[in-house]
């Protein structure tokens, strides 16, 4: 079989592209496992419901090094209706854990703002755990132009 130079080139590009795609999916799966594990640890296996929690983050973050995020949980912060903790997860980071906020009745309102690092465009997840055991979740995609975790 005669393989021309042009064919060789096309073949090798195809092979390289395939290899890169394979690596990408591999890495993404590992991260997804980490995210699922973190969520399971936080919720204790309970399925999170939608609502009550609001995650506020920019749609497009030019600089992934400082992305402002605000999380607010609807809660009276008295009696049983207390948001005890809120976990923020960056699903596309090398280590998905970001921060866990702990509120008390002294907080008055379960709301906090911080600045986080995002390695690439990804979903940011916020989970809230209430005193009565309920778990709520919100998710937001943030597009990142410059990654924030360094090379």
């Amino acid at each position, binding site marked *: 079989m005669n393989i021309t130079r042009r064919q060789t080139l096309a073949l090798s590009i195809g092979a390289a592209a395939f290899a890169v795609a394979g690596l990408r999916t591999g890495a993404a799966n590992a991260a997804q496992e980490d995210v699922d594990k973190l969520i399971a640890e936080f919720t204790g296996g309970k399925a999170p419901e939608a609502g009550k929690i609001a995650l506020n983050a920019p749609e497009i973050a030019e600089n992934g*090094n*400082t*992305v402002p995020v*605000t999380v607010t949980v609807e809660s009276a*912060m008295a009696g049983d209706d207390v948001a005890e903790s809120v976990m923020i997860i*960056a699903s596309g*980071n*090398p*280590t*998905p*854990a*970001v*921060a*866990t*906020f*702990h*509120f*008390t*009745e*002294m*907080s*008055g*309102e379960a*709301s*906090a*703002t*911080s*600045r*986080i*690092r*995002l390695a690439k465009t990804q979903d940011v997840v916020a989970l809230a755990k209430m005193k009565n055991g309920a778990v709520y979740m919100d998710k937001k995609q943030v597009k990142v132009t410059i990654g*924030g*975790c*360094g*090379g």
Partner: protein
Amino acid sequence: MADSKPRVKVPETAAAGEVIVIKTLISHVMESGQRKDKDGNIIPRKIINKFTCEFNGKPVFSCDIAPAVSANPYFEFKAKVAESGTFKFAWVDDDGTIYADEKQITVK
């Protein structure tokens, strides 16, 4: 690191039962442990891993921090004040150092 200077903003006065906003910032590199130096060696992780705030000895807000929090970590949160007193803030470094600050508030 000696240059980790905390800065905290708390209103000086408040009405009883008012929910106030507290803003905190501390200068810190928050080295993630992911970066490499010129020679390809990993720069060891050095971050603030915990932040706490208490009012008159009772916990108000705390936070467990992973390397994904930006350099010079900033936290803004709320507190309900019923009486005059002192807010105490503490940041815990990976190396065990604790940076602390406190602020007074007067309830009218």
